């Protein structure tokens, strides 16, 4: 089933006026002022310039509204009504033992951040000399590669949240693997939300660099220490050199009342391979932008995703694969599981630029609705400006297969267990694509636990 669209869409200019989504909430400018007041860090001139520009952009953009195409399914008002302010350094003293429950079963180097602030005592760093540099971003601002790449790949002015992050990020991870090197272990970036204050916002900014031919696996997990209406606003930029291979697995397990807004942006050089996984089960409201730009021939990207939401959760994934050059490939595979009154959003955008002949792009989005009140908005969006390309997309929404349930029951397996087995199978369709075996096994367990809390 090949569906080659060849249309030039002239979408209306996005509404950029600072319309406040939340009538009772603070204005965008007031939020910016609160962040500016707390922003006492000292930054090199190049970064001051970037931050200043982003701050101005945030003011111009204002809060997103559902009138804008990019936000039409996702009402951010519950977040924007909060008294947004930068999360302070938590007064609590965490030990390694406190973190055991966030362990993902992977023997990995680890960086830990609590409410966006770096916790060096809790980290496990690699020995020097194998080409892997790992540390907090603030500690590496003097590195020339940071200046070269930071805020150069992700658009600060994509929306209010990206501009806010760029203008005021507190810290984040810096991971760099030198050309020709393979990281001996995966890197685990652990972001812990601890603040109980409503609106306390952790702004983290991560930079992941892979030199030519380098190989690296990164796990980025977001968890909560205890429940609270706190906010995570995180951006991760990845730059892959020629023939580099990077696997990035984002695991979002925030607390039930928390908010999560994330952007992951990759930039891929010739013949590089990027695999992204986004596993999302947490937060009251989560918005993920997972994006890559295939900037040179022969690059390939795989975007996998699995989201599971119940109760009144909203989990939104907006993906963008930008085919800028010829002979690139992308494969996208997203599964959604929605129970209770949960709302899922999948918006998969594929650009094929005029120059990007011989593009091969494939997108599959499958969604499982487990209750009458669960909802999914699925929107594949292909914008193709080249004429010799292969692009396919498909989105399905369905329920569990009654035939399969009956078959399992005739073998003695109870109805609830039969349903669970099928839901788990649906989830495994994504999890089995994860290249870190121990992580895959752990995520199966995490999901089984999550099924219990969701009453599945």
């Amino acid at each position, binding site marked *: 089933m090949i569906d080659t669209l060849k249309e030039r869409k002239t979408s209306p200019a996005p509404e950029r006026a600072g319309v406040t989504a939340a009538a009772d909430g603070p204005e965008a400018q007031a939020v910016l002022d609160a962040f500016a007041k707390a922003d006492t860090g000292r930054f090199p001139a190049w970064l001051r310039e970037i931050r200043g520009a982003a701050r101005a952009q945030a003011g111009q953009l204002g809060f997103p509204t559902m009138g804008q195409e990019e936000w039409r399914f996702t009402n951010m008002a519950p977040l924007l009504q909060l008294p947004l302010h930068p999360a302070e350094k938590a007064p609590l003293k965490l030990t390694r033992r406190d973190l055991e429950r966030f362990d993902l079963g992977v023997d990995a180097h680890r960086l830990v951040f609590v409410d966006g602030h770096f916790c060096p005592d809790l980290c496990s760093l690699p020995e020097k000399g194998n080409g892997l540099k790992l540390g907090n971003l603030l500690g590496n601002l003097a590195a020339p590669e940071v200046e070269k790449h930071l805020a150069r790949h992700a658009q600060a002015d994509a929306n209010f949240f990206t501009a806010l992050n760029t203008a005021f990020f507190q810290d984040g991870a810096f991971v760099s693997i030198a050309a020709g090197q393979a990281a001996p272990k995966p890197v685990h970036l652990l972001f812990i939300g601890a603040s109980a204050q409503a609106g306390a916002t952790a702004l983290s900014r991560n930079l992941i660099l892979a030199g030519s031919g380098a190989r690296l696996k990164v796990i980025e997990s977001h968890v909560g220490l205890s429940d609270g209406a706190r906010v995570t606003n995180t951006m991760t930029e990845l730059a892959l050199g020629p023939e580099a291979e990077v696997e990035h697995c984002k695991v979002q397990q925030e607390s039930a009342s928390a908010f999560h807004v994330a952007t992951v942006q990759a930039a891929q050089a010739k013949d590089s391979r990027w695999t992204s996984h986004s596993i999302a089960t947490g937060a009251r409201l989560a918005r993920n932008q997972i994006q890559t730009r295939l900037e040179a021939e022969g690059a390939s990207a795989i975007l996998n995703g699995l989201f599971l939401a119940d109760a009144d959760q909203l989990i939104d994934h907006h993906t963008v694969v930008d085919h800028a050059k010829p002979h690139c490939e992308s494969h996208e595979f997203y599964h959604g599981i929605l129970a209770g009154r949960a709302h899922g959003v999948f918006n998969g955008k594929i650009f094929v630029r005029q120059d990007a002949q011989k593009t091969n792009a494939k997108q599959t989005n499958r969604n499982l609705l487990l209750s009458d009140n669960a909802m999914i908005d699925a929107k594949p969006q292909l914008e193709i400006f080249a004429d010799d390309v292969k692009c396919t997309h498909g989105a399905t929404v369905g329920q569990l297969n009654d035939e399969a349930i009956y078959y399992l029951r005739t073998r003695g*397996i109870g109805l609830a267990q039969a349903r669970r087995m099928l839901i788990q199978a649906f989830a495994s369709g994504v999890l089995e694509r994860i290249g870190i075996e121990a992580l895959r096994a752990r995520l199966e367990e995490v999901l089984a636990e999550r099924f219990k809390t969701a009453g599945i």
Partner: protein
Amino acid sequence: MLEIHNLCAGVDGNPILKDLSLQVKTGEVHAIMGPNGSGKSTLAQVLAGRSDYEVTGGTVTFNGVNLLEMKPEDRARAGLFLAFQYPVEIPGVNSTVFLKAALNECRKARGEEELDAVEFLDLVKQKTKLLELDPALLSRSVNEGFSGGEKKRNEIFQMAVLDPKLAILDETDSGLDIDALKVVAGGVNKLRRPDNATLVITHYQRLLNYIVPDIVHVLVQGRIVKSGGKELALELEERGYDWVLEAVGSNGER
């Protein structure tokens, strides 16, 4: 073991089984034969508990309990097994995980200890040999990508592992070549014991050369119109179903 009295059942208001009665005793093998559309598969599915079929009359007791009130899983746990005519493919559910869960549910219901992984694998090894089943299939998803023959073999393999009291084989011979048929029939025969029973549903007599029934029933238009010994199957094979229809004068009923 199984007592069916005046069973009436249908789907979407259309009657299919009409006053069907049948008794299967422990240790017996019964064959049900009949033309297409006579209700053979409906009988199998009603016994297994498929909810699409509505039972409108009659009783079915299985070892003294009212079968019709039981959920499909409870029927299985009580020792009833249906080998499907069209086994369902279940992508993502591993065959071994599935079968171990099923067996342990059945064992729990029988008051037996659950098997651990090692014990289970021993049992599986034994039974795959019995059915000459490629053990590699068990590392795959349930029935996914199996050939027609592999699916049928897998049904009987599951039966061998679950060790039911009453096995219902619904058109198990369809889609099997003669070699596969011999293997499957051989497996069924080896599982025959004085304390279990088998109900073989088939359109063709061929299977009954290998699984020799004690009693053959002819099902026509939802009721059993003739019962006899194994010779009846041969006669049906030779003369077709028309003479039975004429003999019972059932034409014109539908």
